[in-house]
């Protein structure tokens, strides 16, 4: 379970960043996320939707303990992200659009490295490795250097890295953004599998097809504030336009 309660994240803005942002921006600080609250439950898929720069990645980075909230609180699997970050990290799997792999290692070395960081014992690791490598079809290229693999293969390794320690909570930050249909489908299958295994899943995406295909719960975020938070069914019920995409655009423009 993830509980986000009135979370705000403020970044200080350097002089150079102010210049890059243009004359309309004058402040020394900027709120990337403002007073956001939502809850992600186990066995359900929570979708975070929003245009570029809305604050989705900042939100997910706070959940994953990479960034500290300026205000409010976040608990993941019952642990506070600021006070107990290591406990949170033990229970979380994080996947981004960029594969985040070491090109000079092999998939085997890469996954073992993370298993060691998660403190897995040899027996558990061996069993989990067999299971995941079989599920994702990694075995055939497990000994090749990652730099020599195709982007689809890399994403599979990245997926294996995300779930090797069998986390309770899985965070997907635009994980399918730059992928072909086949690899995207593998990730979608994995997200569904995580739901079946009663994990808490939160994912951010731009693809409206994925929203309707996967979402149990949905939050729409725009310029750092929440403009919708509810179940996907509620979203569909109150839609004033024909498609999910049109409704998303309508809500963003109205905000």
């Amino acid at each position, binding site marked *: 379970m993830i509980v986000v309660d009135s979370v705000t994240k403020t*970044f*200080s803005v350097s002089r150079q960043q102010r210049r890059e942002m243009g004359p309309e921006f004058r402040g020394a600080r900027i709120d990337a996320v403002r007073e956001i609250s939502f809850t992600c439950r186990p066995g359900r898929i929570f979708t975070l939707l929003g245009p570029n720069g809305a604050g989705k990645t900042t939100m997910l*980075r706070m959940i*994953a*303990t*990479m*960034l*500290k909230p300026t205000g409010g609180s976040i608990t993941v699997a019952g642990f506070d992200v600021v006070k107990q970050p*290591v*406990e949170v*990290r*033990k229970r*979380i*799997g*994080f996947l*981004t659009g*960029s*594969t*985040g*792999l*070491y*090109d*000079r*290692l092999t998939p085997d*070395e890469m996954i073992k*490295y*993370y298993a*060691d*960081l*998660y*403190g897995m014992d040899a027996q558990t690791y061996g069993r989990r490795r067999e299971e995941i490598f079989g599920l994702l079809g990694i075995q055939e290229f497990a000994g090749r250097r990652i730099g020599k693999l195709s982007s689809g293969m890399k994403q599979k390794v990245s997926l294996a*890295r995300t779930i090797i320690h069998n986390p309770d909570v899985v965070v997907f930050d635009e994980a399918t953004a730059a992928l072909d249909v086949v690899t995207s489908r593998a990730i979608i299958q994995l997200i569904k599998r995580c739901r079946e295994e009663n994990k808490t899943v939160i994912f951010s995406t731009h693809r409206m097809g994925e929203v309707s295909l996967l979402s149990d719960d949905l939050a729409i975020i725009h310029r750092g504030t929440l403009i919708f938070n509810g179940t996907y069914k509620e979203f569909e019920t109150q839609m004033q336009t024909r498609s999910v995409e049109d409704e998303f655009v309508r809500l963003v423009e109205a905000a």
Partner: protein
Amino acid sequence: MSTFLTIFRKEFTDTIRDRRTLFMMIVFPLLLVPALMIVVTNIQMSSMKKAEEKVLRVALVARANAPGLVAALTGRPDLRIIEGIPADSMEAMIARDSIDAAVLIAPDFDAAVAHMTRGTIRLFYKSSDDFDMVKRRLSGVIGTYEKQLVAERFAVLKMDPAIINPVMIEEHDVASMKERIGKSVGGMVPYLFVIFCFMGAMYPAIDLAAGEKERGTMETLLTAPVSRFQILLGKFAVVVLTGLLSAVVSILGILFAVRRLTKIPPEIVNAVMAILDVQTVLLVLSLLLPLTVFFAAFLLSVSVFAKSYKEAQSMISPLMIVVILPVMIGLFPGIELDPVTALIPVLNVSLATKEIIAGTIKTGLLLEVYASLFVLAGLSLFGCARWFEREETIFRGV
């Protein structure tokens, strides 16, 4: 500890598989530097030999003066005397390399010598050519002729030549060969190993921080259940190790080059090998360790701040000059290790290494150098750790 070892092992494997790092760390100092030293020395030696064996074309205007000197000049096989060239065109001919030198004996030379006064000989040459060989060779011939004239004068005056040398200096140099070589060549050793230490640490530092940020691996690593300090420590240890390895390999490269350079006199080669005994090498390495810690912490701090590999590279490369400068100052004569210079980073290592090699290091000053380096290393590591914890730094440009 096991987390640190896990990170260290992975970072080290990743680093040694990077060809660029491997080249800068092993290949460049071990093979290329000795190869360059051997090639440059051999070229220099053979050019010098060629210059020594060269038959010089010398224009002579004697007008029947100084027959003894003319005979000495014309009698030498390494000089080809050319007569009949007008005096006013000699300078131009030397400038365009038609001749190598010109000797003009003044018309009143014989008369001046006969009256026991000074006769004038004008020597034209180009000092920029062939290791100043022309001047040295002709001065030698003229010098011998002068000695002959002086001896003749003493004979005429019935005087003992010792009369013009009332003081005889008996030199007793108490400096050992180790000390002499240590003070003269010893400065070159830190010049090379400090640079290689910096260069060896540079690429892994860039790759393990800015490179990780650029590739997106830093983001996923930060979600692993380890503290940022443990991550930093693992990376830091690899950067220190590569810097040290690079410095040690550069010393091995120099030793290899000295052994291979057959044209260096064997007594010097033997002396160089003798001064690099176990104690000296260990002392020098003990200086290198805190220096490398400082370099590693400093380089990692810059690299963590940079948005990309390229930005880190462009920020770090100019810093090489900042490192080289104090080492170069350490080579200047008159700059010695004292209570003040012992506190200046890099310069203190350079000067202390020179003293260690010469065997003249004072314990108090050596301890001051250690204290200065360890304080600096500790502060830089502390600063780097604080820097690594900052969100603004680690997510800059990500």
